[in-house]
C-alpha cells in the first residue's frame, strides 16, 4: 500500500488531525487500538516540537507527514516521517531529559523514544529537519508496547 501523505500548517489546532490519521493507519495495519493511540501520541509530540522549536510558534509554516509500512529483517512496522523547513539543530543534541528532575517541559522526546522502536533526526540539505520514527508490530509473544 502506498504511504499516506499529509501536509498541515504549523498551527497547533492541526495536531489532532495528524494524530487521528496516524492512529487510523495503525488500526488498519495490525496494531491494537492501544498501540495505535501510543504511536499517535509519539507523532503528536514530534509535531508539537516542530511547531515549538523548529518554527518558534509561527503557525503559518508547513509540516509534511508521511505514514507508511516498512519491513526490516522480516519485521513489519509503521514508519512515520515528519519534515519541516524550520530551524536546524544537531541531531545528536536531541535527547530525552532525566525524569528524576520533576519540572515542566522537555518530556516530548522522552515520550517519543519510549513508545517508538526507532527515532532518528537528520538535517535536510534544503533546510529544516527530518524525523523518522518506526514502531514494529509486536510479535505474537508481545502483547503490549
Amino acid at each position, binding site marked *: 500500500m502506498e504511504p499516506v501523505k499529509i501536509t498541515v500548517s504549523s498551527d497547533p489546532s492541526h*495536531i*489532532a488531525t495528524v494524530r487521528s490519521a496516524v492512529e487510523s493507519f495503525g488500526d488498519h495495519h495490525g496494531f491494537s487500538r492501544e498501540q495505535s493511540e501510543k504511536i499517535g*501520541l509519539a507523532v503528536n509530540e514530534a509535531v*508539537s516540537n516542530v511547531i515549538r522549536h523548529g518554527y518558534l510558534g509561527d503557525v503559518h509554516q508547513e509540516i509534511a507527514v508521511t505514514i507508511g509500512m516498512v519491513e526490516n529483517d522480516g519485521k513489519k512496522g509503521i514508519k512515520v516521517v515528519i519534515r519541516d523547513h524550520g530551524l536546524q539543530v544537531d541531531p545528536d543534541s536531541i535527547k530525552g531529559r532525566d*525524569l528524576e528532575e520533576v519540572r*515542566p517541559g522537555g*518530556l*516530548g522526546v522522552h*515520550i517519543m523514544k519510549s*513508545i517508538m522502536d526507532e527515532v532518528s533526526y537528520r538535517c535536510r540539505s534544503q533546510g529544516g529537519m527530518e524525523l523518522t520514527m518506526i514502531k514494529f508490530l509486536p510479535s505474537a509473544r508481545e502483547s503490549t508496547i
Partner: protein
Amino acid sequence: MNLQDYENENGPVKRIEIDGEKATVTLSNDIDMDCSPDVRVALQVLIQRKIPVIHIDLREVPHMDSSGLATLIEALQRIKRYKGKLVLYGLQNRVKSVFEIAKLTDIFEIK
C-alpha cells in the same frame, strides 16, 4: 477570568466550581499544545488566589500530551509552595498511560 460559576461547554476548561477552600476544575476534550494554554490560565488564577485544595476532573479528557503534563507539573509545583493540594481524578486509561510513560504517577495524587 471570572471563576465563580465558570462554565464553558466548548472547554477545555468546561467548569470551575469553588466551594469554600476547594476548587474543582472539570476539563474536557484533548489537552494538547492547542488547548493547554487555556488550562494553564485557569489554574494560574486559582493558584494566585491560593485556593488550598484543587481537584481536576479528567473523566472527559480522552487524550493528553506533554504540554498538558507540563501545565499540571507547573501547577503542582506552585500549589506546593503555599502548602496547597492538587488532586487528579477520573483519568482514562489512555491519559493514565501518558503519566506512566513520564513516570509521574508517584508525583501526583491520582484518584
